[in-house]
């Protein structure tokens, strides 16, 4: 595996997940894989190796990204079951693999739709919901609730400017009423808000979840104020690996402001305990956060 290819793809995953939820990022990656297989023009005997390489890169991304990580594991299983379709010619092999990827994408889409159906049950008239990042709740649940005519408002906590802008764009497009505040101003709104909606990049078997950086502060603050915390995630985000294996990315960048320079060190994601979450909602509805292993599909 080329270390350079790994670094390039890692950086792209980190960037794309700023604009989309991890589920949507996974769909985009599957689409990218399909197009790339169509365009691949390598020697016949290298095809399996190329597939293995790209699967390894995706599974080892920094940070690990779910559901794509699990979907790639499912893809590999299928490939191994079929011996990488080695009995077929090059083009037929491509077609067969693309067909599997199509089915995986379809499965994820169905899970996302069902997650929206389940999630929307937790939105009620008069809700004032806190959001801070582009997650499944922003992309799926709230638009569906708005279309169903539910009366609710959103409080957007501004952290990363790119993420905040995207949340605003999505809510605006659906005509959802929102207010933007800096994250540190949340303390003044606890008498108005009644729910916190978050998403995750992964739910690990040791009872933790990996989420966008900045989630930890908000969850902790809401937990202290007894605000109900809802975590929405398709079950394909549940991994049988531990939180310490999630390859968090540590960024060390030189910042220059008005002639003053300093090194800024930051992590790509937060790791939090599921104990802080009050409701874990998957496509199967509200699930027991203490029995994650049972819901793991891979």
């Amino acid at each position, binding site marked *: *595996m*080329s270390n*350079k*290819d790994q*670094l*390039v*793809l890692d*950086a*792209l*995953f980190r*960037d*794309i997940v700023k*604009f989309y939820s991890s589920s949507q990022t996974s769909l*985009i*990656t599957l*689409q*990218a*894989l399909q*197009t*790339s*297989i169509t*365009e*691949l*023009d*390598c020697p016949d005997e*290298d095809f399996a190796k*190329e*597939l293995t*390489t*790209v699967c390894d*890169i995706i599974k080892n991304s920094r940070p690990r990204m779910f559901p794509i990580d699990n979907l790639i594991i499912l893809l590999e299983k299928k490939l191994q079951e079929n011996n990488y379709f080695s009995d077929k010619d090059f083009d037929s092999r491509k077609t067969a693999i693309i067909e599997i990827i199509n089915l995986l994408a379809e499965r994820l889409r169905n899970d996302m739709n069902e997650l929206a159906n389940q999630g929307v049950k937790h939105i009620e008239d008069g809700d004032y919901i806190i959001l801070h990042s582009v997650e499944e709740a922003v992309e799926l649940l709230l638009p569906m609730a708005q279309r169903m005519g539910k009366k609710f408002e959103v409080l957007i906590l501004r952290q990363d400017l790119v993420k905040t802008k995207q949340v605003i*764009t999505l809510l605006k497009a659906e005509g959802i009423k929102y207010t933007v505040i800096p994250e540190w101003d949340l303390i003044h709104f606890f008498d108005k808000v009644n729910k916190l909606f978050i998403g995750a990049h992964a739910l690990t078997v040791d009872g933790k979840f990996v989420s966008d950086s900045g989630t930890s502060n908000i969850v902790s603050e809401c937990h202290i104020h007894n605000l109900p915390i809802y975590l929405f995630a398709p079950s394909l985000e549940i991994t049988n690996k531990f939180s310490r294996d999630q390859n968090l990315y540590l960024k060390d960048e030189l910042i220059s402001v008005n002639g003053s320079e300093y090194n800024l060190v930051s992590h790509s994601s937060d790791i939090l305990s599921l104990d802080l979450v009050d409701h874990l909602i998957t496509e199967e509805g509200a699930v027991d956060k203490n029995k994650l292993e049972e819901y793991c599909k891979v």
Partner: protein
Amino acid sequence: MEHTVQHSSALIPIIVFVIVYAAITFELVNKAAATLAGVGLLVVLHVINEHQAVSFIDFETLMLLTGMMILVTLIKKSGFFTIVSVRIAEITKGSPVKILVLFSIVTALMSAFLDNVTTVLIIIPIIIELTRGLGLNPKNYVLSQVIISNIGGTATLIGDPPNVIIGSKVGLSFNQFILTLSPVVIVVFIIVLAYIWFINRVEFKPINTSLSKLVAVQLLLEKIKFEFSNITIDKKLMIQGLTCLTIAILLFITQTITGLAPGVVALGMAMVLLIISKADVEEILEEVEWSTLLFFTGLFILVGALEEYGVINWIAQNVFMNVGDDPYILVLLVLWVSGIGSGFLDNIPFTITMIPIIHLILESTPIPNDILWWALALGACFGGNITMIGASANIISVGIAKKYGVEISFIDFMKRGAVVTLISLIVSSIFLVLYLRFSL
């Protein structure tokens, strides 16, 4: 006009001019401020009066530049250039050679029909995102696009400031420029592109043999589409803007029939677009590069003063006409002096200074088919590639690249630019010698 230097009185405009030139070259003060301060000094010292100063200004050039700036600002506001850039990025499918070739073609065409600064402002950010995202070295691609923008701009009257000045002050038409210069520009473009490919050939390997690289390209295009397409597209303004630009270019082409000068056309169409688009005029005018226009204004006056005092005549007689009256030598001398001079000085003041000198050379040694003017245009435009300070687009590009974390040093630029200029000037020399041979 005097034909000898009025020795004692000419000393002041010469000193002022040299100081202003040094201040511009070494970027000691803002260009517009430097030239206008120089003009102010000449007026205060009674070297010229305010009426003379105004008479030295070439309003045709200023009208053409202002008009094009307004047209480009409104088209840019419509989102058209972003759509084009993202589409090109998609077409390249991440292939390094396709990135180089397709972006170079777009850059050359945009530079030919718009201004180079606008072109690099649009192209450089997207090419940095694209190449960096693929793990390629963005510096090579940034440098190639700046160089190509200077080459593409050479092809038309409106492509590069030296051509705007030459066209307006000498009365050469849009068609004359494009018909005469585009063949040589196309040849130079192809050779330079081949040279850039050759020196970076290790980086230009095809990527469709690697699945991980292909996946990276797809994800990168998704990212670019998101980042660059997340702007408001104003279709109505886009149609209005492109229609006005097309009409302006058609009127440039039919100049000999309509009798409308390019400056009148550009400013006229800009006003039409401002009115029909109902754009916020104040907001659009804020985008016009007033400092560039004032810089031009000041330079016209400073060179006008030198001309008035016979300094230009003296330079022409003692520098250029000392080499004799062989047209081949004169043409090549103008080409190479302009090329090298424009590389180390800004090519705009250099061109403004050279115009009266060439008028004087032509008075004593008539050279057919405006070949001496073409030598100046080719030299001044291509020469802008030698150094980072040779053309405005170079300085702007290096600045944008730095903002995106891509450092390009003076030497980095010169290593690439000097060779490209050498190639361009050699091709131009062959073209001019052949043109002269068939003209005499």
